[in-house]
């Protein structure tokens, strides 16, 4: 964690505020982000319908593209960087990911295990026949 101290009345930035760059640089950043995001989206649609690649690899390719899409959003729109000012944001993101992983992964595991032990009703009906 960063140990730097933030003065409430000094020149520190309010949470979420970015350091002052010139308007041009900032617009360029957003445009690059938009182009990359559109590119990734278009590629996903293209991959889903194409027969140019080996078919079983398509789901994996879509997952990779989706993760890349998230990365683009985080870097260009949410301004998550590895700079020292950004430790809090990166840690918050890591904590969020951990919680999502625990809750979603745990839920999938628990519910699958329940279903294994308690077959759904139609399953029981079929077994009775």
């Amino acid at each position, binding site marked *: 964690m960063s*140990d730097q101290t*933030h003065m409430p*009345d000094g020149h520190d930035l309010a*949470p979420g505020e970015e350091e002052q760059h010139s308007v041009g640089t900032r617009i360029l950043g957003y445009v690059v982000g938009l182009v990359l995001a559109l590119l990734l989206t278009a590629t996903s649609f293209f991959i889903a319908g194409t027969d140019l690649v080996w078919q079983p690899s398509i789901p994996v390719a879509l997952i990779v593209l989706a993760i890349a899409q998230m990365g683009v959003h985080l870097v260009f729109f949410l301004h998550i960087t590895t700079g020292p000012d950004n430790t809090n944001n990166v840690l918050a993101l890591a904590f969020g990911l951990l919680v999502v992983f625990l*809750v979603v992964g745990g839920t999938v595991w*628990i519910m699958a*295990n329940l279903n294994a032990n*308690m077959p759904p009703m139609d399953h029981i009906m079929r077994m009775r026949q």
Partner: protein
Amino acid sequence: MLGKLDWSAIPFDQPIPLIAGAVVLVAILGVLAWVVVKGHLPYLWREWITSVDHKRIGVMYVLLASVMLLRGGSDAIMMRIQQAVAYQSQGYLPPEHYNQIFSAHGTIMIFFVAMPFVIGLMNLIVPLQLGVRDVAFPTLNSVGFWLTATGALLVNVSLVVGEFARTGWLAFPPLSQLSYSPGVGVDYYAWSLQISGVGTLVAGINLVTTVLKLRTRGMNYLRMPMFCWTTLASNLLIVAAFPILTATLAMLLLDRYLGFHFFTNEAGGNVMMFMNLIWAWGHPEVYILVLPAFGIFSEVVSTFSGKALFGYRSMVLATMAICVISFMVWLHHFFTMGAGPNVNAIFGIASMIIAVPTGVKIYNWLFTMYGGRIRFATPMLWAVGFMVTFIIGGLTGVLVAVPPADFMLHNSMFLVAHFHNVIIGGVLFGAFAGFEYWFPKAFGFRLDERWGKAAFWFTFLGFYVTFIPLYAAGMLGMTRRLQHYDVAAWRPWMLVAAAGMAVLTIGVICQIMQLVVSIRNREALRDRTGDPWDGRSLEWATSSPPPVFNFAFHPDVRGEDAYWDMKIRAQQQLLGHDLPEYHDIDMPRNSPTGFVCAFFATIMGFALIWHIWWMVILGGLGAFATFVAFAWRDHDEYVIPAAEVARIDRANIEERRNLVSMAGAV
């Protein structure tokens, strides 16, 4: 025009809720009339209702929690009397009324007593401990409080208009679905929690940001008081867990309002998914409540032992460990739902592991006391009472974390005794310790010690007499939520528990008496220095009550126990430093945004419950318009001139000098 609402909504045939509602209504109207006649209304509006001062909002949170504690406590008394008399008879509460009472008791105690109490104390104290002038988002803070109050109001309206849920405090489907609960009870429950849940989330974001971004000079993470650390952990959990509750209740509401099938028995719905999701929020929730209490005890034990907290870094580590592990144990609330041995075993082990950091904390508090000069003032009594009680509750918790044992004890009175043991012994004792400890800081006078100690002993003993019998009844096979029973062996335990409830009630009366007596003797109990307990952290470095800007200068922190350090240095330098130069201070302007938003949210919530669609649109538009009006405001700060800051600060320095010289003369 009015949706489902008509005269049949008011339970004219049930005297108990009607009389209770009438008494409360008369009391509220009486207070309102008194306020208007005495001309206090402009003062209340300017200084409290529209206030964005974190101290005022903190006090209002605690006030809300205290009032709701009386409501939830009345429910508890009614339940204990019912179970004491309903042996081979129907008792005095018909089943549908009894079911509403236990549902309302749980909902109110968790969401509208424990939550506002700890959030109020965090609001009041954390900015002071960090040495800053306000929280990160002052107006948002006010919005959060008023939305919580909206939820509490809706729950209480259900007493007279319509009914409350009969489903228990978590409204499990399929019982909470339209087919089994066609009334408005579950809707009151769900919309109250949705609205107050937004308030809680807002408070959580605000406090996380405050701790991470607003700290005074030199206050790095490992110099923060323990209470700030537990606040950070608890609010991180709020931000991570409350969206799960909101989403789960939203799905239940979609089932009820629009015929969806998330948690229904038919059409591919899955009831088990509701248990899974609600407890994925529910378990972090208990740590959201108890972590701030752990922080309060850390402050209290260290101050009243006259020693720095033992094992500060291990305490930080334990707090953050609990923060993460609390997301890995939720299945232990439904071991009996049918999961296989692997799943049950893993979650059982995780549940036992989370007891380890808690144990670390207990040892740290004991070692802090060891070799200290302990003063048994009222806050310290609550802390010691907590340690004894919480260990018992924790051990029964580890017992029910063992899946085979849980299969015997699930949904029994043993479980009821266990969670009251940890919530009363942990959260409530912590809230009372914090209340007694920080009251002088908030209001500028101490609380009467004699009544405080009486309140502690009656509550402490009353707790054991009430809840130990419930453990015994659980062992004898008594399940929870019984409206009546025919087993002779349970009867004596229920009678003892009812007697314990009477002792607890005396404790509550002592607490109220303490407040009354202290207010009457406030001149004699006045705290002139701002440091009545010989405290160690920065909240004691300013006057009591603190000025609106908290500190004339941002304190310069050079180590742990910042204020203790300053006092030692001041003694060495014989208070001989020059008078500093004062500057203007910018403070946020008060804003009615929170109150107006909550007003419209109340209208919208009520309309949603009764299906009055035009009113829903009206409330929604009103709340949105308020937000837009706030977003377009022109100026949001006002200036306190340097001369005024100097006047206030010098008066406080003068008081402290007098005290030191008086102490020197003796």
